């Protein structure tokens, strides 16, 4: 056991770490904790060349500062990334200094039946498959670790925002995978780690092609070519846009979007290369059904979530369905067609407006997306919704007296809130909103056998059907066909009420 002091190669800062001879060992780095456990020093196992050093310097100085100084900078640095803060050198070896992960990212309990992984990192992989949530699996995760289905939407939103910001800065992550995110379904948070491999095409080429399961088809299909071959495809922003939906799909459906039953070659390696690369095919392709998972060939622990007929991807709702189609059908072999990160963020956010709590207290998922039918039920446990269900469709003013649909719907449940981003189309729901903008403007409640909306802060709300103002502090009943103008201000929306499950 030795405490080692190391010096920054950028400035005069010094750092310390404890070498007990058994560092946490990753693919490229050995990780050591500082004595106060506030940061880690991750030493590269291999010698880094001049270009690598320059890349790391830039990531830990210029890029770090750009993010810090951006609007909402704290949110990115504190919540979304574990961004390396400095580069150090020891005996010719290079390392990076990275702030420690928050306590939420270590298992409090881990497995339900033993302590083996208690205190270990919550690598995304634990939550990206169905085995560990299957109570029959000998090493299943404790229920207290799993969160509910809504948790995973917030987790995907975090990851998506992290990727969006990198892309806005002209960077590509290049190795986005469940290994490079830590997630906590309990506090509904996610953080992107291992950011020292960032890629700027042309300036900092990719060092890795990615992690199996997440490598874009074109990268695998050209893997055999030399790095200097112009046809060789290496990780970039567009390959991140393949890895990202793979992650989203896996965190919401606990299976892989491309790993189906179709066999391309009798040789395992070749078959894998083809089925994830040149011949990749979405397992839920609507017309080409040749890659549907074969239930009798799945691990017995995975058959519940592996059944795409029982739990098709359409249970994630209409907005995500469209993006999955774009990513895994249209864009699978046409990288330019892949939806950008921001579209995923918006679709995920809008989908949370479609969610309903399941009435069955024993339901594992607890939440589900409204299935657009008149008699909604939870796709996970089959429990039918009881009682009427108000559905609010949002409209914007196209020109005086012409209102057009926003393709945005809000499902109402008891004690559901309404926010500014519903009221006014000029306010976009994002991490950049101020605290004031994140405050609810009113809420919905089931009161005396009626659905009502209670207006808390909307100054110019009007019940168009009754042609009456809805002043602050008053309530208005939601009835079938009712039209409510939420705000008279520029960008103010009208909602139209539909009563489902009558």
């Amino acid at each position, binding site marked *: 056991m030795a405490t080692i002091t190391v010096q920054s190669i950028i400035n005069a800062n010094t750092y310390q770490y404890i070498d007990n001879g058994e560092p946490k060992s990753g693919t490229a780095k050995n990780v050591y904790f500082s004595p106060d456990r506030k940061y880690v020093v991750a030493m590269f196992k291999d010698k880094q060349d001049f270009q690598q050093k320059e890349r790391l310097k830039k990531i830990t100085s210029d890029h770090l500062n750009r993010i810090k100084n951006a609007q909402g900078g704290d949110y990115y640095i504190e919540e979304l990334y574990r961004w390396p803060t400095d580069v150090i050198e020891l005996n010719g070896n290079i390392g990076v200094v990275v702030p420690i992960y928050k306590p939420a990212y270590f298992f409090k309990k881990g497995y339900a039946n033993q302590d083996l992984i208690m205190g270990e990192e919550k690598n995304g992989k634990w939550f990206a498959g169905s085995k560990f949530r299957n109570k029959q699996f*000998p090493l299943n995760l404790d229920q207290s670790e799993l969160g509910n289905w809504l948790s995973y939407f917030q987790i995907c939103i975090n990851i998506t925002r992290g990727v969006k910001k990198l892309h806005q800065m002209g960077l590509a992550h290049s190795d986005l995978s469940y290994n490079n995110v830590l997630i906590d379904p309990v506090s509904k948070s996610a953080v992107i780690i291992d950011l020292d491999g960032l890629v700027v095409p042309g300036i900092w080429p990719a060092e890795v092609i990615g992690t199996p399961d997440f490598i874009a088809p074109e990268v695998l299909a050209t893997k055999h070519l030399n790095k200097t071959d112009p046809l060789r495809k290496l990780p970039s922003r567009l390959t991140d846009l393949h890895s990202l939906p793979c992650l989203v799909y896996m965190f919401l459906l606990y299976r892989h979007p491309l790993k189906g039953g179709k066999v391309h070659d009798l040789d395992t390696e070749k078959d894998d290369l083809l089925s994830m690369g040149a011949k990749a095919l979405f397992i839920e392709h609507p017309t080409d059904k040749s890659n549907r998972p074969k239930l009798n060939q799945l691990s017995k622990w995975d058959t519940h979530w592996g059944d795409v007929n029982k739990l098709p991807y359409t249970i994630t709702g209409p907005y995500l369905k469209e993006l999955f189609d774009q990513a895994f059908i249209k864009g699978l072999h046409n990288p330019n067609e892949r939806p950008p990160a921001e579209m995923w963020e918006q679709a995920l956010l809008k989908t949370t407006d479609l969610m309903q709590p399941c009435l069955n207290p024993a339901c594992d998922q607890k939440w589900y997306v409204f299935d657009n039918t008149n008699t909604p039920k939870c796709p996970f446990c089959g429990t039918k919704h009881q009682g009427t269900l108000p559905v609010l469709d949002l409209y914007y003013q196209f020109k005086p007296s012409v209102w057009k649909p926003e393709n945005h719907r809000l499902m109402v449940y008891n004690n559901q809130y309404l926010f500014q981003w519903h009221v006014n189309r000029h306010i976009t729901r994002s991490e950049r909103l101020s605290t004031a903008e994140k405050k609810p403007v009113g809420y919905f409640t089931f009161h005396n056998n009626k659905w009502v909306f209670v207006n808390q802060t909307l100054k110019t709300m009007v019940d168009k059907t009754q042609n009456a103002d809805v002043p602050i502090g008053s309530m208005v009943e939601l009835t079938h066909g009712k039209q409510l103008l939420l705000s008279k201000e520029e960008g103010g929306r009208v909602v139209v009420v539909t009563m489902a499950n009558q």
Partner: protein
Amino acid sequence: MRRLPVYLLLDTSGGMFGEPIQALNNALSSLINALRSDPMALDTVWISIITFDRAAKEVIPLTELASFQLPEIACLQTGPRHTGQALELLINKVTKEVRKGSGTQKGDWKPLLFLFTKGAPADKLDFTKAVPLVKALQFGTIVSCAAGYIKDEELLKLLSDNVVHLDNADSHTIKQFFKWVSETIEHGNKSQGTGETVTLPPPPAEITVVT
């Protein structure tokens, strides 16, 4: 579902008696625990243990990691080391257990073989006869580990390009070796370099790789 079958062939001959077999049991249990803390390994790894002394014995048939119950590996006080017989049993098991791809079903990953021995095979003839048959089974990796001084190390090199040599069979070196085994098993799902070949992780500093 593709499985990654891992075969462990362990020497239980007289040469292992005493500290070496204790250290081996200890290292095995660390190996299993390390793999059982790894979600990637739990997704694919299936393990089988075959021991060999004067006879070869399948201690555990190919079993999913999560359901795997590690027994205490016992060894004889004296007795020869019939490594060749172990290979014969291995050939038999691999042929039966490892799923080949077919037109309608995905096959398993290429199996991995780790042979841990304290010395050279006593049944040289059987051993040399079995080697080409083992090689024909197309293992993803074959690693032989020789602990302590071995007279006929050349024989082991027939079986695998990777012969790891431990200077002795104490608990530290054995543990280091099995840590490396676990890294080798876990290797598949990590980030892949842009280079063309997939390489084994470097062995720990304490042991020598004979090439």
